[in-house]
């Protein structure tokens, strides 16, 4: 995912991570529920914002992380900071979840992330909902 997002501009970068984080959130939510996930996200964002102040614009809410404020505040000059910060959020989120669940959720979260298919940057991509990964799609198809 990091490789895939390597040369994207900040807005597209945020979109890509939003997509990835959304996938993680949905998977973790099934097991942990709103309150726990929000509390974890709160911790992750707090720690991230300490290192990368630009991420202070991220908000955790009961349903998901809110990225809009971050998108609005990011300029092209902050691209590297944004990239490092978002990467930090992702890793921190996976680490904390791993610690709290004794790594029980970790394999499925990593699979979710690995199977994610990113938008290629077409003009209407940012208005589309995040893509399901192949694995998720297969799982949903099998269920239906």
């Amino acid at each position, binding site marked *: 995912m990091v490789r895939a997002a390597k040369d994207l501009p900040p807005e597209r970068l945020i979109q890509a991570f939003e997509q990835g984080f959304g996938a993680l959130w949905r998977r973790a939510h099934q097991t942990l529920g709103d*309150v*726990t996930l929000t*509390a*974890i996200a*709160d*911790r992750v964002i*707090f*720690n991230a914002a300490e290192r990368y102040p630009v991420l202070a614009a991220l908000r955790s809410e009961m349903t998901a992380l809110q990225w809009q404020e971050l998108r609005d505040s990011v300029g092209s000059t902050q691209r590297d900071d944004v990239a490092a910060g978002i990467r*930090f959020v992702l*890793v*921190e989120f996976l*680490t*904390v979840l*791993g*610690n*709290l669940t*004794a790594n029980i959720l970790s394999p499925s979260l990593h699979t979710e992330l690995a199977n994610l298919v990113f938008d290629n940057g077409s003009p209407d991509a940012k208005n589309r909902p995040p893509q399901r990964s192949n694995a998720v799609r297969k799982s949903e198809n099998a269920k239906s």
Partner: protein
Amino acid sequence: MTKKTANVRLETGVRNLDALFTDGLPKGSATIIAGPPGSGKTILTQQICFQNASPKNRVVYFSTLSEPTAKTLRYLKRFTFFDAKKLDESIKFVDLGVLLRTKGLSDLFKLIMETVKQVKPTIVVIDSFKAFDDLAKSAEELRKFGYELAVNLMAWETTTFLLGEYGEQDLRSNPLFSIVDGLMIVSQREESGEHQRFIQVVKMRGVDHSREEHAFVITSNGIEVFAPRLTLQRENQGPTTKRCKTGISKLDDLLGEGIPYGSSLLIGGVAGTGKTIFLLEFLYRGAQAGEKGIIFTFEETEERLRAAADGLGWDFDKEIARGMIEVVFIPQPNIMVEVHLLMMKDRVEAAKAVRVAVDSVSVFLHKIKDPQIAREKTFQLASIVQNNQAVGLFATDIPYGTNQISRFGVEETVVDGVILLSSTQEIMERQRYLEVYKLRNTAHLKGRHSLAIGKGGITIFPRYNLEELREPPSLEPTSRLASGIPGFDDICDGGLAERSVTLVSGSAGIGKSTFGLQFIAEGLKHKQPGLYVSLEEGSAQIVKTATGLGLPLKEAIHKGTCEVIYLSREQVRASQFLAILADKIKAKKIRRLVLDGVSHVLGDERSEDLRQLLFALVARFKILGVTSMITLEANSMYATGTITDHGFSRIADNIVMLRYMRSLAEDIPSLAVVKTRGGAHDRGTHFFSIGKGGIRVGERVDGVLAPTNKKRRPDKRAN
């Protein structure tokens, strides 16, 4: 960046508390510590905090209205775990008192979480959480607050302690108790006459934890939990081949190969049977042999034990001074079984004690009413001994007039052996006895053995030893010893068979002792060391008599080839003869032995006892290769149909009867050989006389001398 959690357990630093959770408290758990005021909640939590606090593992301690922080800190200073340097940098105290008075739960939640975010602690404490109960407008609000706080603290991976004066009602109805991962209850009450504190882990998610109550104490070191059921478990040591020799005189002869290391033995007996002396000597002999020992005493102080040891002639003080013996006195009223069990474990380990004595286990457990608990505690005591591969002796006071072999009647089932000490009134004095009642994995000598306590300590006189368990060798009729009595060998098939036992029965003053003296003197001529044991006359008198007869005993004594000893009934019991004589025989390589005056000294014993003793003596002499002579006094001066007055004829190989013959003018001494095993003898009665050189056998009473030429076999003597 958050690191991956490697260690999932938190060491509390409270002694033995971690054992209650198998291996420490789960990190990241939220635990309620409930208990009434003064039960030790705050100290317990503070100890855990100070144990774990460091710049990398910070602690936030939220204090509510229950106890002002300043007061808490002042109080904590008296504990050794308190470290002022950890304050602020590692432990942050936050007083929530003002907010509690002015704000609602949501503001408190924010403040708590803001603090957590700023400090990033590994441990969070809220003391007391119950203060929030009063602040909540409804049970729902309290539940929501508790749940969200618990979840948020969990998200920060903090180990959380929520303290509160919660009671039974809260356990059933307070929603907080279903939210948290763990619940520990601390309490205090009177038990077995003692004020005791207890801790119980009621709940701890994901952990196999103890559910029992465990005693604990608060000392200047903080809290110490006593959970012997968990911490004094028996370790698998594997089979032991090493054996302990006690060093107590003759006890090791009874104990076969010795006591296997790792064993515990009860030393049972009513008061005054010598249990304490037994334990002290066990330690003292061990110290002399280079084995460290420790005694836990509940009645006798160290000073009194030292005085007792001094009275027996032992340099106990020296052994204490050089660290070979340690005395731990715990006054009986202060005994707290669980507390002191742990203390004993520590002291045994610290001392590296190989010998452990407890005086007494019955006093140690005297507050326990349930025999099963007494059994369990004895087992734990034995486990301390086994885990240290030591040997433990536990004295136990047996109630008078019972058939029990221990105080509670159950302790013997968990120990490896039982030694019983007893005493019985015999004539004018009380005699002590020792019996090895049980000793696992060791072939030991059964039966009651005489025991004496005197200068030097304990002396045990085994009734028999392992040597007697094998069959005595048969006599070799052709291997004969000269008796040294002119004319006697002619009527006795050429002499006395080697290793035979000759019973000389005769009335008082007829010459039995002279008979014996000649037998010894003859042996000296053939370089056969002799032992003359007198049970009637003093040794000086015996030597004088021998000299008077022209028998060279005095010279032989001087050279060390002969010994004359006097064993008085006042000093030595019949049951002690075996041991004493066996020692002498082995030490001097004795080949000839006379035991003079047996009936006299054994007169107060029952016939059956005497018979058994003589059987044992005979067997012992034969096995040791000794040719012996035993003199018995006959009540009748004149020849009767009875050979001996005690019916002992079957134990002897040869029986010689000395009796007077009536004549008109005088009583004439006569001699008759009435039995020789493995040989032929002249069955006639012969006159004999006593003069220079001793007894000389004369003519047959019927006037016909025995056909000596036919039976004499001088070439086959084993001289």
